């Protein structure tokens, strides 16, 4: 970025301001007579992206309550430019996963993630989304969000305080502002066509119940995490 000279006399400045009423802002003081910035498009996009994160309004479990606390008056995540929750995944670029993911919900979460436009970021909130947390031993529990979708930032805690979530989002903003992206570490349970699954005992057993074209997710509790 480059800024122009700011050495203007008072008269000169006010005359110029009248001439350029549409640039009538504090920016003029900062940038001077040529209020233009030369920068790389990428840098600009990264800056814009990190300064206005659109969070997907997404509630799963206990952490949702603390996430709502983060959105509400006392903590107010909007101070950091990430505070307007979007009700549709198609308008969001930040997915906060606030809670335990169980077998029945996992395919839906994958679908919601897929519906978000690129580039998209994920902050996983709470121990359940890291490893299954206190419910890790449950027969129905997916051990962590990374079994299903890639995650940029993990916020530990059960539940994390709203401050911790704010810190996690701020860290993500820092990262996106610098144009960094996280490596994809997911060991995913994929959504697949039932017909594409490897034929084994279970698939044959379910053949009457599930159509070939149905999307399914196959879990293996003992091999995960």
């Amino acid at each position, binding site marked *: 970025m480059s800024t122009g000279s700011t050495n203007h006399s008072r008269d000169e400045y006010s005359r110029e301001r009248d001439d350029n009423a549409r640039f009538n802002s504090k920016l003029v003081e900062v940038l001077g007579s040529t209020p233009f910035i030369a920068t790389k498009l990428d840098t600009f996009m990264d800056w814009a992206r990190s300064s206005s994160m659109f969070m997907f309004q997404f509630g799963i*479990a206990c952490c949702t*309550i603390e996430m709502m*606390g983060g959105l509400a008056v006392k903590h107010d995540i909007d101070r950091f430019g990430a505070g307007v929750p979007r009700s549709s995944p198609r308008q969001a670029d930040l997915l906060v996963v606030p809670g335990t993911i169980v077998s029945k919900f996992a395919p839906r979460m994958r679908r919601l993630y897929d519906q978000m436009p690129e580039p998209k970021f994920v902050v996983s909130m709470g121990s359940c989304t890291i490893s299954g947390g206190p419910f890790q031993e449950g027969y129905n529990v997916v051990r962590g969000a990374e079994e299903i979708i890639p995650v940029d930032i993990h916020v530990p805690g059960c539940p994390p305080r709203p401050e911790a979530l704010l810190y996690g989002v701020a860290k993500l903003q820092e990262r996106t502002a610098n144009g960094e992206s996280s490596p994809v570490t997911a060991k995913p349970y994929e959504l697949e066509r039932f017909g594409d699954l490897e034929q084994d005992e279970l698939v044959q057993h379910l053949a009457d119940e599930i159509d070939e074209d149905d*999307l399914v997710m196959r*879990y293996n509790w003992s091999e995960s995490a």
Partner: protein
Amino acid sequence: MSLEVPEPSTYDDVGVTEDGLDYDALESLLGEAVTGRESHATTEAFVVRADRVADALSVLKEEAGFDHCSCVTAQQYEDRYESIYHLKKYEDPTQELAIVVPTSTTDPVSQSAESVYRTADWHEREAYDLIGIEYDEHPDLRRILLPETWQGHPLSLDYNQDKPQIVTLREHENALEGDSRGESDTMFLNIGPNHPATHGVLHLKTTLDGEQVIDVESDIGYLHRCEEQICQQGTYRHQIMPYPDRWDYGSAGILNEWAYARTVEDLVGLDVPKYAQVIRTMGAELCRIAAHLLALGTFGLDLIGEFTAVFQYAFSDRETVLDILEDLTGQRLMFNYLRLGGVAWDLPEPREEFFEKIEHFLNELPHKLEEYHDLVTGNEILQIRCIDVGNLDPAVAKSYGCTGPVARGSGIDYDLRRDDPYGYYDQLDWNVVTDDGCDNYSRVLVRLREVEESAKIIAQCVDLLRDWPEDDREIQSNVPRTIKPESDREIYRAVEGAKGELGIYIRTNGTDKPARFKIRSPCFSNLHALPEMVEDAHVPDLIATLGSLDVILGEVDR
């Protein structure tokens, strides 16, 4: 003692005497359907033949006055399956009775109780889902918590958790399917499982005729995180207590912990020092205020998409309560503060500062409540949206086993804090709030008034604690390091949680872990009654009604 003395129960019902229930009279009422008798910790249980369940229950309901089927527990023994119906009376919940229905391991079929108690519908589906008992004459026996393609019944003895499972995405039917013009007038609409108004991950399958709801079916289980299995793996003394916090996570932590504490204390016979009971009572009521404020804030959000005033007001007041609770317990949401036989630690020092903080909050509260009444209950637009919408008839509510503010908003005078006293409630001066409106408005009003009553209770607790002699501040009684109740004891105990009757059934097997741990969730029963309330309602009224029920999915699915 509460100012409002409960009405003396009528002695018309069979088996009711002045000294409690006469179980012999009840047994003879059932005749040959009964094949034996068991003794549970707080009640007697009759063993009933699997093909005579509906008969027996209907006699008990009609002639002996057991109008509340509180819970249905299913479990598997080495040699048999068992369903237990825990019956109570709305008029006097201390009159309890359990009906035990054994079935063989090879052919576990037992008659459904759905024709007698509507609430048995969902309870029996859950029993089928998790244990594998089949219910004859059940209108719609299929899985309720787990996906339809799940293999095996996870709480049965031969379940193998390591086997792979396949889950489909297809439960989301196409909203426009069957709407080909001219052929059908109805439209199918999915609400959830991710939707801002469903309070988490609830899926409502709605059939619409124009804008009117002609059928709604709740599809739950998107947050079934195996709480019962996990409690069965934990030891009584320490490992179970953190989990109740996570059932009803809408700030109701201490209320839930109390359900577990009360059950085990009654099971093993542990005393709780009076001082600890007062602290528990105070903490529990603070939780109730926080939970009701959350319900109010999200109701405003559901009803009119109102994110600015009601929601933010409720959350800022809730933060004050959470601050106090954090001082007391060390956590904002998952308190883990109660211990068997008492509480974890004494009040924070300096005590006087802590009391002042609470009193400051209580002094502000009347003014704030007035503000809420201006903003919410006195608001004409809101009244138009809520009054006479989502009607729940008291008889219907009883049949669905509704409890808590949902039942009290339908004029059912049922509150376990008064009717089945525990803690320090019977020494304090407060009232049970009811309202006869039976609609969404009444339920919201009842919650707001309950905040007032809770504040009264807290104020009295603060006075008591302030004057409590310093040498008598025992926070926990002498509890053995390992708790190993004797084998084959069974208990069902409930407390008044934020959403209603939160009960726990425990069966022991002589080890330091429960053999069966069953949670009776108030939200589960309350949500079951939703279709009754929204018949022919408009879609926005469906959302409002759901909001007024204040369901927490963590507690519905467990």
